[in-house]
C-alpha cells in the first residue's frame, strides 16, 4: 500500500523507524507466558500446607480433564467452520445472483446473522432447537454440543458470505467482460474464471474468521456445554473454592488457546503477504 512518488526530490530525512512487522514475535512469547504461569504459581506453592496440596499437584491432577475439554473446543470450532463455510459460500453466491429476489434475501440473511451478538445466537440455538428432529420415521438426536455447533455456525455463515461477496466484487470487471466476449456462460465464468482467483483472496480472512470462531467456542460454557471453561468452573467447585487456584487455572486456559491460535495467526499473515504481491 506504500505509495512513493519517484518524482519527488530526495531530501535529508531524520532516521524513521520502519513499520514493524507484527509477526516478528517468535515462540518465546509462548515460553514467556508459560514462565508467567509458573511464576504466579510460586507464591501459592510456597503457601501450600499439609491439609491441601500445592497448586501444581492440583493443576496436574485436573490437567487431563482440562485438555479433554479443550480438544472438545477444537472439535466444535472445526465442525462449526465446516458447516458455516458451506452454508456461507452458498449464501455469498446468492448475494451476487442475477435474480434480485435471491440477492435481496441473501443480503438480508447475511446482515441478520452478522449483526446479532454471538452469545445471543448461541442462546437461541440452545433453547429453541428441539432435542431431536423427526424427519419421516428417522429420529436425529440433537445433543447440546451439536446445538452449540449450529449456533456458532450461523454467524460464521454470515461472515463467510460477506468474504465470498467481497472477493468476487474485488475482481476487476474486465475479467467478466473478457470471459463473456469469449462466449462463456455465466456459470462457467463464475466457476472457471472468477472463483479460482477468489480462493486466494478469501483464504486469509477465512482463516482469521476461524481464529475468531475458536475463541468464541468458550461461549458454549455459558449455555452449559462441557467444554474447557465449563470444566474449569466445575474443577474450581470440586476443589471447594480455593482462591489460590484461580490465577494458575485461568492462565492455563489462556495458554491453551494462545498455543493453538497463534500459529494460525502467523500463517494467515504470511499467506496475506504472499498473495498480496501476486494480485
Amino acid at each position, binding site marked *: 500500500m506504500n505509495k512513493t512518488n519517484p518524482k519527488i526530490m530526495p531530501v535529508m530525512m531524520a532516521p524513521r523507524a520502519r513499520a514493524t512487522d507484527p509477526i516478528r514475535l517468535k515462540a518465546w512469547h509462548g515460553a514467556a507466558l508459560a514462565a508467567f504461569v509458573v511464576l504466579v504459581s510460586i507464591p501459592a506453592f510456597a503457601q501450600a500446607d499439609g*491439609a491441601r496440596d500445592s497448586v501444581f499437584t492440583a493443576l496436574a*491432577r*485436573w490437567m*487431563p*480433564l482440562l485438555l*479433554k475439554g479443550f480438544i472438545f473446543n477444537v472439535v466444535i470450532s472445526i465442525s462449526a467452520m465446516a458447516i458455516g463455510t458451506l452454508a456461507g459460500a452458498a449464501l455469498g453466491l446468492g448475494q451476487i445472483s442475477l435474480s434480485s429476489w435471491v440477492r435481496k434475501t441473501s443480503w438480508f440473511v447475511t446482515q441478520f446473522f452478522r449483526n446479532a451478538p454471538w452469545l445471543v445466537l448461541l442462546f437461541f440455538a*440452545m*433453547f429453541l432447537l*428441539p*432435542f*431431536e428432529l423427526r424427519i419421516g420415521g428417522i429420529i436425529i438426536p440433537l*445433543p*447440546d454440543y451439536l446445538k452449540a455447533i449450529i449456533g456458532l455456525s450461523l454467524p460464521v455463515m454470515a461472515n463467510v458470505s460477506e468474504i465470498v461477496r467481497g472477493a468476487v466484487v474485488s475482481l476487476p470487471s474486465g475479467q467478466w467482460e473478457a470471459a463473456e466476449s469469449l462466449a462463456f456462460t455465466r456459470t462457467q465464468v463464475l466457476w472457471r474464471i472468477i472463483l479460482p482467483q477468489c480462493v486466494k483472496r478469501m483464504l486469509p480472512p477465512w482463516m482469521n474468521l476461524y481464529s475468531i470462531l475458536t475463541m468464541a467456542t468458550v461461549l458454549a*460454557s*455459558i*449455555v*452449559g456445554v*462441557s467444554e474447557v471453561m*465449563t*470444566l474449569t*468452573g*466445575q*474443577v*474450581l*467447585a*470440586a476443589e*471447594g*473454592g*480455593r*482462591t489460590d487456584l*484461580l490465577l494458575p487455572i485461568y492462565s492455563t486456559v489462556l495458554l491453551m488457546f494462545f498455543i493453538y491460535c497463534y500459529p494460525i495467526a502467523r500463517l494467515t499473515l504470511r499467506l496475506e503477504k504472499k498473495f498480496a504481491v501476486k494480485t
Partner: protein
Amino acid sequence: MINKFLKGLTTAVALGAFAFAAVPAQADVLDDIKERGVLRVGVKADYKPYGFRDTSGAIIGIEPDLAQDVADKLGVAVEFIPVVSSNRMQFLEQGKVDLMIATMTDKPDRRKVVSIVDPNYYSSGTNILAAKSFGFTAWEDLRGKPVCGIQGAFYNKKTGRDFGANIVAFKGTAEAYAALQAGNCVGFVYDDSSIIASLAQPQWSDYEMPLPTIDDAPWGLAVKLGEEGFNTLMSEMIVEWHKSGRILELETKWGVENTPFATAMNAKYQ
C-alpha cells in the same frame, strides 16, 4: 370500548400463537428409556456434595447416586447430563433429560412447567454465607449491599425485591465463592445445606451463616409434564428411599450432617 378492542386484539394474537404451539407428544417416556437402554438424568456438576466432578470428569455425589438407584430399578444404564439452574427446566421440557434431580426447589409456578414428584426427596432453606466481621443479624441488613448469587435461583428475586439487596449473580458456584472471597459482595445467598457443608472447610473459618433460614422449602425431582407413569414410579421410589433410610445413608457417605428433613421423613414412613 377499549376493553372490547383489547380483548379482540388478544384473541387475534392468541389464534396466531396457536398456529405455532407445539402439540405435546403422548408417548410414555418409560418405554422410550427401556428401548434406548439409557436413563438420561439432569444433575448438577458444580454443587458439592450433591453433584460434582471427580478428576476423571465423571459426575458423582448424592444426586447421581439417587439417579443410579432409579436406573438400577429400571434395569438400564444411566447417563448424567450436567445442568445449571438457568437451563434445567428447559432441558426437561425439550426432552433432553428424562428425569431431573438437580437441587431444584419445589415451587408452585415450577409445577406448571414440569411435573414435580410427590413426596419431596430433600429440603433446604435459603441463607447467606458472609464474613463474621460484618455481624449481620437480619435480612434487612443486606439492603443496598452487593450479594452474590447463582443465576436462575428463585431466591434472587426475593432477596433483591423484598430485602433490597443488590444481587450479583454468577453462572456457577465457583465464581460466586471466588467473588465472595475477593470481597466483591458481602455475602452469598444460597441453600443452607450447601453453606453448612462449605463452613466445615478450613478456608471458610472466618465466615458464618448468620441469618434466620427463610423459605425452608422442599426439593422436587421432576419428570416431563404429562408423564404420569414415570411420575408414579418415581413417587414409589422416593417413599422407598425415605423408608429405607437411603437418603440418610447417602448424606453420611458424602459427609453431610443428617438434615432434619431427611430424619423426619425417615421416621414418617417407618
